Structure formats: C-alpha cells, structure tokens
C-alpha cells in the first residue's frame, strides 16, 4: 500500500517549494482556462484560442531580445493580438483575419529570435513552457490577473452568453455586441498571457479547448457545463503535474494526452447515450 502511494506520489511532490508554486499556479490557470474555454467552444473560436498563445510567443521572444520581464511582454502581445483579431474580423469572418494576425506575429517572433540568436533550449522552453520554473512573484501576478479575469467574466456572463448563442436576438435586445466581443477577446488574451509561461505556447490551447468541449457533450446547461469544464481542466492539470514530476517529461505532453482522453470518453458516452435513447424511442413507437 505504502509502495503504491509512493509510486503515485513520489517524495517531494507536495513539499518542495517550487512544487508548491507549480500547484498553486497550475490550479489558478486551470480554473481560468476552464471558464474561458466554455465560451471559446460555445462561440466556435478554437482558432482564436490557438492563435492568441502562439502569437504571444513573439512577445516572449521580444522579452528575451530586450531583456525585459517575460510576463509583461506576454500581456502586451496577447492583448494587442486580441484587439487586432477583433478589428480585422469586425466584418463577418474571423478566421482569415486571425490567420493573418497570427502569421504576422510569428514572423515578428522569428525576427526577434534571429536577431537575438537565443540558444535552442531557450526556444524550447518558450514553446513548451516550464511548469517547474514559476517564481513566487509570478504567482502573485498570475493570481491577481486570474482573479480579475474571472470576476470580469462573471460580470459579462449574461450578455456574453446571449451574444454567443443568439447574436441577432441579443442585438435586438440592445446588447452592444461589438463591445461584448472585444471585451471577451481581451479577457481571453489576459488569460492566455498568464497561462502561457506555465503550460507553454503550444499547449495553453489544450487546456482551453478540450475540457470545455468534453463538458459540452455531457450537459447543455451553461452553469453545469462551466463547472464541469473547470473540474475537467483542474483534473487534467493536476494529473499532468504529478506524472511530469515523476517522469521528468514535458508537462505539455501529459496535458494534451489527458485532455484528449477526457474529450474522447465524453464524446463516446454522449454518442452511446444518444443511440440508446433513439432505440428506446423507436421501440416505444412500435
């Protein structure tokens, strides 16, 4: 029994000080990602959720070049990118505008890296993040921004939900759709900037999409879906952190695999439940 326990939770998992930071940081981030993710999936803006962290990569590269605080640059770039996507996508389609914004920022990132000539490992940690390297100062900022974003989302909740599900109806009821959308994009940008240093550029997005998508298969009530999405994303983050600590493999890999697994299971269940209901209905009719 004790062997199993120590195999699952190797010594130091909860006592090392940097692990404490990792636990707190990843929990804040997972809650926020689950919440924002609900709206991302509902609005069908997976591409934006992917583009925001990836474009902010340019910010991280810029911070490396100019030797400034990475988090500050991430915030500037993520929010700037969100505004640009909002501006280019004002008329109708978001996806081409998103693609162009993203590509431009990546080009800028490539230039920064080229000029500063950062060593390959530096790029690696920019792309894939490093959950074990969070300082106490970062935790404080992450917590503050996280709290701010969650409160803003709660305030925005009703108009945003309305505008996402029934844009025409919302407009008719006098909801300022443009403003609501831009605020949401900015909030997604803020969330991205604090999630990124922990899970890395490429996998911020897993934590935003997969838990929320899994929740959308399980329930149709918004509040349930949000709570479930947060629960899934916490579960994903915690399990990944445990295994990553044990194996030393990149956290992002586990986040992606576990989140995909949760999604696959709930999609499969939703299908089989639907099929069962259909069969029941058919036999009832006969």
């Amino acid at each position, binding site marked *: 029994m004790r062997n199993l326990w120590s195999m699952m939770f190797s010594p130091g998992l909860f006592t090392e000080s940097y692990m404490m930071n990792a636990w707190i940081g990843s929990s804040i981030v997972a809650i926020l990602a689950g919440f924002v993710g609900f709206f991302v999936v509902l609005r069908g*803006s997976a591409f934006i959720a992917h583009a925001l962290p990836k474009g902010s990569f340019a910010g991280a590269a810029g911070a490396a070049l100019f030797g400034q605080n990475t988090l500050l640059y991430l915030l500037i770039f993520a929010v700037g990118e969100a505004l640009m996507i909002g501006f280019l996508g004002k008329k109708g389609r978001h996806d081409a505008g998103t693609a162009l914004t993203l590509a431009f920022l990546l080009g800028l990132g490539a230039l920064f890296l080229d000029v500063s000539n950062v060593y*390959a490992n530096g790029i690696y940690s920019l792309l894939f993040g490093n959950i074990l390297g969070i300082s106490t100062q970062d935790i404080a900022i992450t917590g503050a921004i996280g709290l701010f974003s969650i409160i803003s989302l709660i305030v925005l909740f009703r108009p945003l939900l309305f505008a996402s599900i029934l844009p025409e109806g919302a407009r008719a009821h006098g909801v300022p759709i443009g403003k609501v959308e831009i605020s949401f994009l900015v909030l997604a940008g803020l969330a991205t900037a604090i999630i990124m240093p922990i899970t890395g550029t490429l996998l911020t997005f897993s934590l935003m999409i997969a838990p929320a998508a899994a929740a959308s298969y399980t329930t149709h009530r918004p509040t349930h879906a949000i709570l479930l999405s947060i629960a899934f994303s916490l579960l994903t983050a915690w399990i990944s952190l445990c295994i990553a600590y044990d194996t030393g493999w*990149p956290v992002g890999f586990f986040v992606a695999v576990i989140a995909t697994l949760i999604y696959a299971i709930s999609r499969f269940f939703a299908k089989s439940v639907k099929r069962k209901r259909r069969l029941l209905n058919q036999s009832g009719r006969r």
Partner: protein
Amino acid sequence: MITKFLNFLLAPGLFQSPQVAHALILGSVVAITSAIVGVFAVIRGQAFAGHALADFGATGASGAFLLGINTLWGFIGMGLLGGLGMDMLGRTPRERDVTTGITLSFMLGLGSLFLYYVTTKTTATGAPMTIFFGSIFLVNPSIVSIVIILELVTLLLLVILYRPLLLSSINPDLAYTRGVPLRTVSLLFMSALVLTVEQSALVTGALLSTVLLIGPAAIAIRLTKRLGTTLLLSVFVGLVTMWLSIVLAYDSAQLPPVGRGWPVSFFVVSIILLFYSVIYSFTTKGSK
C-alpha cells in the same frame, strides 16, 4: 547612377548564388500552389485546418528527426494522418472547429514529447529552430525535384476536382442534390491541402506556411468576385510577395546583426499584412 541604385536594390551576388537560385525556384513553386489551394481553403472556411496541418507536419518532422529519416516524409506522413483524421471526426461545421482544435492539441503534445527527446537525447539541438522557422536558403538541393513533382501532383488533383469542389464549397446542398460525392471531394481536397501546406512548411518553416496559404487568397477574394480572376490575382500576389521577400532577405545581410540576414518569413508576413490592411481599409470604406 543607375547601377549604383540597382546595386543598392539587389545586393551584389544575388543572381550568382546557387542558394538564391534554389530559393527562387522553390519559393515560386510553393507560392503558386499555396495561392491556388488557399483560395478554396478560404472559401470553405478552412483557414484553421490549413494552419493546423502545418503544426501536424512539425510534429511529424520532429519524429523524423528522432528516427533519422528525411523530414519531408515526416511532414507529409503526419500531415496526411492528422488531416484525414480531422476530416473524418468533424462532420458538421460546428463540430469541425472543436475537433480541429482537439486533434491539433493532441498533435502538439506529441510534438513536444518528440522535440524533448530530440533536444535532450540527440545532438540535433537546433531541430526546433529548423522545423518551426526553416530557412528557404538552406533547403537541401536533393529535395528540389521531389517538391516540384509533388506540387505538380497537387495542382493536377485540383484541376480534376475543380468543378465538384467549387460547387460543394459554395453550395453544398445543391451539390448534394446534383449527386456530387461530398465526402470524397472533401477528403480529396484535404489531401491536396496537406500536400500544399506540408511542402511550404518544409520550405518556409512550419510556423509561417499559413501566411502563404491564407494571405494572397484573402487579399484576392476581397478584390474580385469572379473565381478565375481571384485565382490569378492570388497567384500574382503570392509570387510578388515571395520574390520581394527573398530579395529583401538577401539584402538584409547588410543590416545588423551583420552577416546573418533577417528571416525571409518576416518579410513575407510583413508584406502580406501591409497589402491586406491597405486593401481592407479601402474595400470596407467602399462598401459603406
């Protein structure tokens, strides 16, 4: 006077260097195919898929680095696997967005594991840089002919698909009643998209193939409504951007840091964005 200006514009040695010649050939081939396929990708709302494919390719290329095979096959193999999987999983448009996202996040996770091994266990520490940012000047000359052949295959596929693809992109319901096999067309187009994106990812770097696919097409679509004109315009914008970028990148060796030059991809994205913003502001003003 004129020669002085020309020397300033086109740095000496531009046309003598074999790297530049290869870059011009590959760049043109990739730009043409991307511009044509891109028009359909934008019409069908598959910008996200096009971008995701480049990332799948990056994962495949990292795997190829690990196994020690040519990265071209890594790019194409993983691209086909991911692309076809994505196409099968996302049947309805609403589902497509999320399934693309999930497939992408899984692939990125796998890619991060591969790259972790490549950078920690092998000597190829520069691999992430090569895969994500690639350099058109450093492409292995042996693959030039393979790339050209594959691009021709892609274009041929598009020519065959042209009419059913167009109908099913613009009006799927009508296409269905006319008996167009929608699933097959969608799968075949996805394969063409995979071939296009993966090769431009190989040549220009995975992070930047998106701009060649979407940029010229989005610009052309804003300017004209007729499909033939759109295709031509898209190819024109793609080619001009590519050539200009290669020349500028070659010239930029004189900028700091001296000797290394700025990446071609940076010039490509800047030129495209500039084009797009100008045209965007003009066309939106016109429509008001």
